[in-house]
């Protein structure tokens, strides 16, 4: 009797450890259920990756083979990759994208960190106003300010420049960063800061020496999300730029021309698309937990 019980106990504790709280143990159906989950998981992965796989396949097809409609290229070639890196149609936009995105991320996260700390920790008039305004900006249609920005940048000489894009990117990245960061800051134990205060530190010193190391993961997450946002932007990129001086990759993809007047640049666009997706994939692979935490932190308090 006891051995049977212990077997059952061991059995259920093993299964319980894997499945998490509240999962009923159903031994005979387990194999069938597992199969169902496997199928579902595979289905989900395929769903997520098929378009990417298709672009990858197109990027390895030479211009003649592009229209053969096969998923696996019969004669893979690096011609498209060579084209985009040697004809100057992609390198400069890539540099623009990298530079503008990084600068926007740094500034946005810096400003948001200051603001989020204040919102999570301090009491001051206008706090609710700022949060509401941030929320409002997140809902803003970018196209609504494209016209005024075009005209403003035209007169200020910011049209087709890096700052011309950095400024709107920063602005629209602020709400999301402030939410993510204030959610993270709220998780940090208050006592630590109070302890520092008792030790004689001013609020600012408490911030620098105690909070910052604890907040670093949150800052990092916010930076990743801002990076995604700026890397991805298209509206501002095509309306506020007109030359390679500041055109970023999403806008440049639109301008790829084929080798001749009548040829489609499908292969070149695909190759460029893959190159520009690689950083995304790397970030997702390395930081998927953080990204998920960041996305859900602001939206729902669990």
């Amino acid at each position: 009797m006891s051995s049977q019980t212990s077997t059952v106990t061991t059995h259920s504790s093993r299964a319980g450890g894997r499945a998490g709280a509240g999962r009923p143990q159903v031994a005979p159906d387990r194999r069938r259920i597992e199969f169902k989950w496997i199928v579902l998981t595979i289905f989900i992965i395929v769903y997520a990756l098929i378009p990417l796989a298709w672009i990858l396949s197109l990027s390895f097809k030479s211009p003649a083979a592009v229209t053969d409609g096969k998923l696996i290229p019969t004669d893979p070639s690096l011609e498209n990759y060579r084209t985009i890196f040697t004809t100057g149609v992609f390198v400069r936009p890539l540099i623009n994208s990298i530079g503008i995105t990084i600068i926007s991320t740094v500034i946005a996260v810096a400003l948001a960190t200051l603001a989020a700390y204040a919102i999570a920790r301090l009491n001051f008039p206008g706090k609710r106003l700022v949060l509401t305004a941030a929320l409002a900006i997140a809902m803003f249609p970018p196209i609504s300010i494209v016209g005024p920005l075009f005209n403003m940048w035209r007169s200020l000489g910011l049209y087709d420049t890096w700052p011309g894009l950095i400024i709107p990117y920063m602005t629209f990245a602020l709400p999301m960063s402030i939410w993510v960061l204030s959610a993270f800051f709220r998780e940090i134990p208050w006592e630590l800061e109070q302890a520092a205060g008792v030790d004689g530190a001013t609020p600012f010193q408490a911030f620098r020496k105690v909070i910052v190391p604890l907040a670093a993961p949150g800052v990092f997450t916010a930076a990743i999300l801002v990076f995604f946002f700026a890397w991805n932007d298209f509206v501002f990129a095509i309306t506020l730029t007109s030359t390679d001086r500041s055109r970023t990759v999403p806008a440049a993809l639109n301008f790829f021309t084929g080798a001749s007047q009548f040829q489609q640049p499908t292969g070149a666009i695909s190759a460029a698309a893959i190159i520009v997706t690689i950083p995304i994939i790397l970030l997702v692979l390395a930081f998927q937990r953080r990204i998920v935490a960041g996305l859900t932190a602001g939206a729902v308090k669990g």
Partner: protein
Amino acid sequence: MAALLLLPLLAACGGGGGGVPTLNWYIGKQSGGWIENAITECNKQAGGKYKIQFQELPKRATDQREQLVRRLAANDSSIDIVGMDVIWTAEFANAKWIVPFPDSERAALTDGVLKGPVESGTYQNKLYAAPFTSNTQLLWYRKDLVAAPPPDFTWQQMIDTAAGLGKKVQIQGARAESLNVTFNALLESSGGRFLDNPEAGKNATISLEPGPTTKALAALSNFANSPVASPELNTAEEDTSRAAFEKGDSVYEINYPFIYPSAASATAVPDLQKKLGWARFPRVDANIPSRPPLGGFNLSVGSHSTHKAEAFQAIQCIRQPANQLFAAEKGGNPPTTSAVYDQLTTDQYPFKDVLRSSINDAAPRPVSPAYNDLSLALQNVIHPLNSFDPAAAAVALRKLCEQALKSEAVLS
């Protein structure tokens, strides 16, 4: 933050010291290398006074315009020479984005040049765009299937002949500028026109008399609803028509001459090129000579350019007959100077006489600063081609064009 703003600006301001001025020539990508050739030739002839540089614009005319208008409106001083589509002259001139050629240079740029192209570059009696290359659409037919069309061959006869043989006719019906090309030719061939007084520029009035307009629309509508229309008619652009004709089940095609060299390498029909015949754009009314469509590239000087004098000189060089000959032979773009036609070989251009007379008699699309709006209005009313009633559409078109002329219609 202020420093951050200033740095890239300063960086952008770098460069451009003394030395040979660079003239940026903005023009869409073309095949055949005739742009590069013109640039090499003219840089040689410049003898160090200037250096022309090719700045590539997107392939399609609408995309080129999208890029140009934005930058010209932003007072871009790097735009020296503009490769102008023939329809942009009035718009760019009225917006003061291009400068007219000095009267002293006008003669050199228009002597011996065919009428159509000169008209397309003129606005309010000034020459704003110097003719360089031209283009028009001819009626191509399968010599082995039908007889040569008589001089007064009409659209309806074309439809009936093809239908009788159970074959198709290829034209461009996509919702794009090509539709305006076709319709404008039909309208002018019916004796009508878009504008009463194009010289009045902004204050011109819409013509679009009901009689000719309805006739032109009826020709188009009958075509679209007949069995000779291709199933892809409503998305067919120039290349689609070419490819479809090469498949072999069409007997007529209305398209630019680029299809002729391509026919030599067509595989579905053996010896297709040898079986090709050509004639002038068909008439709408048997008694009125047709007015073929007009295309091509002109050359203008940007009004914010800092090297206008050099740009004027460069244009004189670029458009010279020798470069037009190269463009014709290697790029398939017909010349604008009449004498160059005599230098074309009959191997490459057996149709050069029809070509020359077509371009000379061609009707430019309406010369108006609001041309873009008129173009969109037309597409709005008549696309898809099998969806409108000619009489009703004529009325709707007139109304919408009147609004469009004042830039007051909301057209996507």
